[in-house]
């Protein structure tokens, strides 16, 4: 197939493709950096000068050729120490989809980093070293992906070249993981064998595993059905910014700007304002490109209403008969990210959708050991990288949904009032119901 430059331009300008957000999880030696390097190189995202640079670095370190793992090496400090310290974002695309990949380091501060990368991901790729099989860390990564509500998991059994491309080994690992993962909240889990180093089943099929008839990793990423993942039912519009230009021609204009977090809205529809409970109708959906008749998540729009209601940032527009929970106290799973442990006597600043309120963590119900997934009800606090189930009390009610049905209105962050550091990430769960995670045993 020929690629003339004009074809290239026509394809770029003509393309109508989707965005897919991925997160990769893996530990030190499971080949994650090699996999990402392989994806980038084989989908032609890497420039010659970048490859040359990597080759030179490798030569200085005594290696030869292009070490794929070095392509994604980021900061100088990291290269010196041979580790990665932070989430890095990578980009690649195919004619079907454009991918944003959150590359989360596996060792240092893994929980904090992985939770961050997973928070926006639609697909998680979990790497397993075929020699080692399912390890505690594999389960930990799967658990965090499930907790963060990632709808699709891909368990990539890597380094098949080191187990003689053995189908039996692959089936053994798949069987073990399948049994364990039945308890997860994730309903779409795929398994595939591959060798990131040699490229088999990443972008190219390679010729070492004729026994595997499923899709390659890229096939899978390009074709995963994601249109059902979005919540298109519950209209939630947190008001982000109130537009009152007060220019001569827009003297009385009052528009409510924000991003539709879920659901859809049309002109003429009745909406309810929270917290007041007053109702009105959508008069216009204003955008730079002209008014819309209707809009859908995740569009950023400006809505005007037929009636004058006092509305400010942090308020929410929803639909009658489909309102979120209105809570001053709620239960949540929190991942602690602060250097100082969680302190129930301390006041935090809570950000939830566009609202900002003071908050206290009233009670720690239990700590979840992310390695064994056992609950420790005797725990008194959460330290950096620890997770637990808490009860949060806020100064003003928040308009929230369960995280399992709405990732946008079920999520919040906690900010330390003194240092302004982001110290916690939380997911709201139903109150007083049995805990959503099953009891885990290992």
């Amino acid at each position, binding site marked *: *197939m020929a690629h003339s*430059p*004009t074809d*290239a*331009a026509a*394809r770029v*300008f003509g393309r109508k493709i*989707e*965005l897919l957000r991925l997160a990769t999880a893996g530990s030190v030696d499971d080949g994650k950096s090699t996999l990402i390097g392989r994806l980038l190189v*084989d989908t032609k995202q890497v*420039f*010659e*000068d*970048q490859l040359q640079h990597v080759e030179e670095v490798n030569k200085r370190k005594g290696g030869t050729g292009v070490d794929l793992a070095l392509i994604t*090496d*980021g*900061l*100088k400090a990291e290269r010196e120490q041979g580790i990665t310290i*932070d*989430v890095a*974002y990578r*980009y690649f*695309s*195919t*004619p079907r989809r*454009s991918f944003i990949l959150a590359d989360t380091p596996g060792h240092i501060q893994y929980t904090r*980093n992985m939770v961050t990368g997973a*928070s*926006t991901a639609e697909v998680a790729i979990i790497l397993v070293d075929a020699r080692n099989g399912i390890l505690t860390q594999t389960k930990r990564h799967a658990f965090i992906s499930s907790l963060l509500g990632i709808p699709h998991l891909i368990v990539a059994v890597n380094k098949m070249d080191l187990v003689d491309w053995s189908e039996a080994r692959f089936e053994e690992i798949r069987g073990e993981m399948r049994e364990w993962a039945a308890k997860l909240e994730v309903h779409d889990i795929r398994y595939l064998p591959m060798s990131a180093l040699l490229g088999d089943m990443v972008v190219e099929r390679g010729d070492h595993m004729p026994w595997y008839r*499923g*899709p*390659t990793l890229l*096939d899978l990423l*390009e*074709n*995963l*059905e994601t*249109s059902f993942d979005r919540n298109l039912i519950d209209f939630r519009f947190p008001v*982000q910014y109130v537009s009152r*230009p007060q220019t001569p021609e827009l003297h009385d*204009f009052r528009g409510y*700007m*924000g*991003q539709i977090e879920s659901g*859809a809205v*049309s002109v003429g529809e009745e909406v309810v304002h929270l917290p007041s409970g007053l109702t009105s109708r959508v008069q216009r959906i*204003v955008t730079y490109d002209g008014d819309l*008749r*209707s809009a*859908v998540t*995740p*569009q*950023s729009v*400006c809505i005007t209403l037929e009636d004058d209601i006092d509305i400010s940032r942090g308020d929410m527009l929803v639909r009658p008969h489909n309102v979120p929970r209105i809570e001053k106290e709620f239960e949540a799973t929190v991942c602690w990210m602060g250097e100082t442990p969680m302190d129930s006597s301390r006041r935090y600043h809570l950000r939830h959708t566009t609202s900002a309120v003071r908050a206290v963590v009233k009670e720690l119900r239990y700590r979840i050991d992310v390695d064994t997934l056992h609950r420790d009800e005797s725990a008194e606090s959460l330290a950096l990288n620890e997770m637990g189930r808490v009860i949060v009390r806020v100064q003003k009610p928040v308009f929230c949904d369960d995280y399992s049905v709405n990732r*946008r209105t079920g*999520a919040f*962050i906690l*900010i330390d009032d003194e240092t*302004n550091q*982001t110290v916690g990430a939380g997911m709201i769960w139903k109150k007083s119901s049995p805990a959503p995670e099953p009891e885990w045993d290992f």
Partner: protein
Amino acid sequence: MRHVRGAGLATNCASLVNGPGYHGPLGLDRGAFVPRPGLREPDRMPNTLTHLQQLEAESIHIFREVAACFRNPVMLWSIGKDSSVLLRLAEKAFHPGPIPFPLLHVDTGMKFPEMYAFRARIAEERGFRLIVEKNEEGMACLPDFSNPARVCAHCSKVLKTEGLLKALSKHGFDAAIGGARREEERSRAKERVFSFRDEFGAWDPKNQRPELWNLYNTRIHEGESIRVFPLSNWTEADIWQYIRQEDIEIVPLYFAAEREVVERSGVLLSAQEKRLLQPGEVPQKVVCRFRTLGCMTCTGAVRSTATTLEEIVAEALTATRSERETRLVDQGAASMEDKKKDGYF
């Protein structure tokens, strides 16, 4: 080995491997939308946004967050193509109102004349508030032009970075919006969308605030500031596609024309500023264009006959060298990382 960059170019994609009728492992034709039971589909409502619509929505959300959460924000306007996209997104974010903050151009005095002309015209046409700041002290102590490397270093460190920091503190800006993209450079890949800067304007890559969902931590103490990058998740291909889709005007230097240049260390430098010419360098006329725009001292052109957006994009996407390579100033390991620690954008 030929490296074709960007979307739509991989020769080994699923549809090609599996043939044109291949609809993926699920056997679903992804063109058809299957509505959820019980969901009323409003007339002609787009049920799936394209990647550009999604990126646009995310960027607009970021702009509004800045306007809502900061006392005195500003948007950096470098006059390049990414800045042009940034400007359009800012207009979209606040439509029908005006952009509720000023634009700032940190001028090194060494930009191309075409860039100054573009700046003046666009500012007048669009009617936003434009602040131009120059580091006058830094400009007074320019090194001798006989040493171009020193001029570049001075330009980048003193005129750009210090000039920026001075301008930010002079006006008391607490948030500065810039057009940097994560895909551009290795240290940028780890940058937050809302990136904290201490009272010295410095970036600490090892101590960044975690950033989750679309919940941004905008809280700072007096004297500290946040750099905001609404284009974080855009790639170069996205930028070009958006420029074309939205019909966004860019500086003519991006298009090929016959220009007077000198060739130095393999880079074509503009010969418009005669002071920059070194002994023995004779300007020649070359049909060329600029892939990135910066100062005349350090921004090189490439030989090209691309005079339309289609041709430029064809070049950009089949390029084998990354765009920053034409900038003398970006060569050298970890240079961007070091500059950012000093306060560079």
